[in-house]
């Protein structure tokens, strides 16, 4: 069977599975719609959180990015996992004990301020929309490359599926669908990785094969071989760092702190039955994420080695089929500058001019073909990429619909709305959000990709300090928190907008503040947030006694009741 036929089979089976699960677990109350009735066991919640968290960026782009960045790729690996330690230790148990539905709920109650709540709602909606547009784009790429479907039609199909189970099932439907999606995506990620590890190093575990010897009998370590190949072609050695240490430090911190502040991740910890379950489900989530995140750097190194071996100094007429396939999508470009008919793929340190540009996003999708794996594996990877994109999109759409129906309508605009009315509003909001996200997926504004990365910096500079201080420092008051958030987010956004949109030509290390790139500036924004919010709090009136009691209450271990304040 051809790659395309296998892809149809794999994608078809997985979609049927998601729809079946969605019908079986649809929501009937706002409690079920927002937080699955707070009845999800920690292991299941951990798995769903992992699928929610690992987006098209983790599945499709990350290993490709690492394979071009070498050791510096660790900023993503550590940045997108280390945040869970902060979540489990500093946030999840207390927010679960607090027991309302959303992050703006906590910010609004703890800082007894409508301004704070509305700022939080706007941040949550903004972060979620930029993120979800990127997912829809991922869906479009997979459809267009593997199923020869037009990108527009691909996005519409993806929208239809997400609409169906997010709108029908709410958090309950999404949670159980995400469990199915996690299984599909992790299987799809591991199968080719294990195959390639076996072929290249003879070791069945990619995490070990990555540091092992090559299977060609030379006794050479894979990483030494890769360093040698890279330097020969004028690239930096793979295992050496290229970014400045301070920049690596700040980017890693911004991603970690941003992870801990992202609303669609935090809301998952409201869905478990107990405070202790919130802690352990963060642990399970990270365990399930770590399976992919420790495989990714191995995949990156294998893919890089294979790529350098396969295409460099090959005659253009003799390139393998995958090369031509991706060339037609425009994601591989070859320009025979010296006219010798050979592909010279060279790095910056080489005397010879480079003739090949490869889009980093294709590495994971092309990897099975580069390694000449069977067609069904290629189809499986396509289904896995879709699972990653759809599960994240669904989780984000739920945050958007909750923010609109619960935080804005119920808490601010129409306070006497009935439970039924709120549920209908939540579904309509999810439906409208799907359509807007789909529009961005078909016709993405050029800056979507960049904005997604910056969502982390903005979350780190705004939400993270407000939530942490709200739990760990009783003296923090509303004026302190709001002024800190405003300073943090304006500094971070200003720095990013200056370097990325106003004067992109100045965006080089020499012009950066302390050598920190716009990607890492959120960390400095967070420090500023703390520096402003603490003295401002100390100079103004302490929070009222009932808020101090609230803080005492979330700190004490007596188990939280069901988080419903709405009667079901």
């Amino acid at each position, binding site marked *: 069977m051809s790659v395309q036929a296998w892809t149809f089979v794999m994608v078809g089976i997985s979609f049927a599975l998601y729809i079946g699960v969605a019908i079986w677990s649809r929501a009937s109350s706002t409690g079920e719609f927002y937080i699955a009735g707070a009845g999800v066991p920690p292991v299941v919640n951990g798995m769903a959180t992992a699928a929610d968290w690992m987006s098209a960026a983790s599945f499709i782009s990350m290993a490709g990015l690492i394979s071009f960045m070498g*050791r510096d790729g660790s900023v993503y*690996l550590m940045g997108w996992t*280390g945040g869970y*330690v902060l979540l489990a230790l500093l946030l999840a148990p207390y927010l679960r004990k607090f027991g309302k539905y959303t992050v703006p709920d906590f910010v609004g109650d703890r800082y007894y301020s409508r301004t704070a709540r509305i700022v939080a709602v706007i941040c949550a909606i903004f972060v979620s929309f930029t993120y979800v547009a990127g997912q829809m784009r991922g869906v479009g790429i997979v459809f267009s490359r593997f199923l020869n479907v037009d990108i527009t039609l691909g996005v519409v199909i993806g929208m239809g599926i997400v609409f169906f189970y997010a709108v029908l099932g709410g958090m309950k439907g999404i949670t159980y669908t995400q469990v199915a999606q996690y299984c599909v995506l992790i299987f799809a990620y591991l199968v080719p990785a294990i195959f390639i590890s076996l072929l290249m190093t003879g070791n069945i575990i990619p995490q070990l094969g990555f540091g092992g010897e090559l299977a060609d009998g030379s006794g050479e370590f894979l990483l030494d071989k890769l360093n040698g190949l890279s330097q020969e072609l004028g690239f930096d050695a793979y295992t050496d760092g290229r970014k400045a240490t301070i920049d690596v430090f700040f980017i890693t911190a911004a991603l970690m702190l941003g992870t801990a502040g992202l609303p669609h991740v935090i809301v998952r910890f409201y869905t478990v039955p107990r405070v202790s379950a919130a802690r352990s489900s963060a*642990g399970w989530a990270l365990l399930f994420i770590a399976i992919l995140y420790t495989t990714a750097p191995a995949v990156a190194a294998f893919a890089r080695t294979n790529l350098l071996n396969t295409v460099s100094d090959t005659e253009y007429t003799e390139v393998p089929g995958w090369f031509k396939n991706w060339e037609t999508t425009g994601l591989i470009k070859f320009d025979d500058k010296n006219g010798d008919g050979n592909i010279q793929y060279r790095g910056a340190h080489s005397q010879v001019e480079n003739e090949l540009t490869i889009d980093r996003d294709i590495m994971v999708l092309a990897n099975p073909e580069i390694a000449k794996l069977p067609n069904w594996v290629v189809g499986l990877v396509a289904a896995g990429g879709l699972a990653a994109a759809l599960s994240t999109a669904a989780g984000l759409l739920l945050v958007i619909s909750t923010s609109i129906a619960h935080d804005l309508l119920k808490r601010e605009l129409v306070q006497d709305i009935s439970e039924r009315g709120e549920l209908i509003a939540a579904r309509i909001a999810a439906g409208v959000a799907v359509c807007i996200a789909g529009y961005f997926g078909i016709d993405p504004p050029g800056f979507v990709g960049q904005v997604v990365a910056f969502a982390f910096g903005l979350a780190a500079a705004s939400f993270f300090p407000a939530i942490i201080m709200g739990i760990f420092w009783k003296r923090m008051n509303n004026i302190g928190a709001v002024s800190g958030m405003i300073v943090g987010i304006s500094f971070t956004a200003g720095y990013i907008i200056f370097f990325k949109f106003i004067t992109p030509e100045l965006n080089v290390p020499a012009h950066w503040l302390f050598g920190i790139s716009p990607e890492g500036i959120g960390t400095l924004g967070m420090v500023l947030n703390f520096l402003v919010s603490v003295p401002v709090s100390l100079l103004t009136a302490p929070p009222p006694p009932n808020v101090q009691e609230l803080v005492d209450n979330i700190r*004490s271990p007596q188990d939280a009741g069901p988080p419903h304040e709405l009667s079901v």
Partner: protein
Amino acid sequence: MTGNDNNRAYWKKNLQYLGILLAVWFIVSYGCAILFVDFLDKIKIGGFGLGFWFAQQGSIYIFVALIFIYVFLMNRLDKHHSTSNREEEE
């Protein structure tokens, strides 16, 4: 012991655990994998330099372990805390 003292003791113990675990978190990620990575790379384990291994593998394993250690410590503390609460009521 009054309920308030009990809560205070619980919170103090919790902060102690947090301090130790977050110190480990910081040392493996920002220490071993970023600040001292080139130094640790001189030590080889198989094909890996130790710093490179921490940056792309080891730190992630340790993150997972840290959360489960915290879960274990806090579950024990919760249990201890609720028994002393009950004694007080009796």
